[in-house]
């Protein structure tokens, strides 16, 4: 009886310890690599969402302005340029005009109304690297084409860059 108790308290055998440590190492390694891949996936998915939200925000502003604007203010519009800007003129029933300018500055898209700063249209944690406007206007209608590139500003393997295109005809 005495001998048995002594044996029980002698601890783990070398073989048991080696097997235990090996199994735990494999499990922990799998767990850590999964945590790493999950955090990468999360970061990419967050960037992807931010890029998408910025694009939708900018496009919504264009759609909103195009519905009321009737002319392009050519003097204050920069066509065929990667840091482009567009200035749209809308007239209300009383003949008063509102000029809305949408432009790219420091990798963010902003909106001004009657030369007064209104606010940004893209999120601050993404970079708009290209906002090019193409003049689609003819003698019979006014319109423009938009090309926009948005990236997440990361230079690692989580780098994301997406292009968005749309065209608009003024009413």
């Amino acid at each position, binding site marked *: *009886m005495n001998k048995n*108790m002594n044996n029980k308290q002698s601890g783990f055998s070398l073989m048991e310890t080696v097997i235990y440590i090996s*199994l735990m190492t494999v499990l922990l390694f799998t767990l850590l690599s*999964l945590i790493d891949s999950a955090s990468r996936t999360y970061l990419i*998915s967050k960037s992807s969402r931010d*890029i*998408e939200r910025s694009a939708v925000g900018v496009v919504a502003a264009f759609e909103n302005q195009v519905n009321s604007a009737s002319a392009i203010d050519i003097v204050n519009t920069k066509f065929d340029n990667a840091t482009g800007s567009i200035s749209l003129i809308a007239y209300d029933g009383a003949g008063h005009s509102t000029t809305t300018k949408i432009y790219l500055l420091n990798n963010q898209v902003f909106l001004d109304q009657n030369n007064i700063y209104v606010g940004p249209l893209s999120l601050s944690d993404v970079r708009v690297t290209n906002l090019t406007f*193409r003049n689609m206007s003819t003698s*019979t209608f006014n319109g423009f084409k938009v090309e926009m590139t948005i990236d997440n500003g990361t230079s690692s393997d989580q780098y994301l860059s997406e292009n968005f295109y749309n065209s608009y*005809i003024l009413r």
Partner: protein
Amino acid sequence: MFLKKQLKFRSKKHDMTSCTSHTNLNRGFSLAEILIGSSIICLSLILIINLETGISKLGFGSTQRVQAGMLAEEGVTAINSMRNASWQNIGVLSNNTLYGLYWNQSNKNWQATTTISLVDNKFTRTVVFTPINRDIASFNIVDSGGVPDTDTRGYVVSVSWQENGATSTRSLTSYIHNIYNK
């Protein structure tokens, strides 16, 4: 004798009310128990993280859906701009034929072409026109019967792309009419 002494000592140390029945509890965990316990915890964590990663990946395709939606909308605007310039741009296109749309930067206009090229090496945008028949009395568009209306065409703009090994498509269906008659 030794066992009795030890039980007494443990019972005192832990202030147990019934020392004999709790002896096993004080023995601690065996190697097998630790191994099974930690394996269950690790495997549960692995499953949870895998599930979370899978759910996050589900959202990845949504940017492409937004891009495709915008390309399809642009297709509709492109067709409207072609019509606005001249109905001939639409009139000369064959029915039930796949056309691609491309921006001609030198002419600054949209054009239809039978050469379909990829947008950003990712999206294929096509447009197919269909003939329209109208009822003689009501002038409503009808699926069968009626007379052909050469001043109206039906069309479908489709944008397709590869996603998780399968082809996804977004389509917009509309009509275009020779409203400016030119």
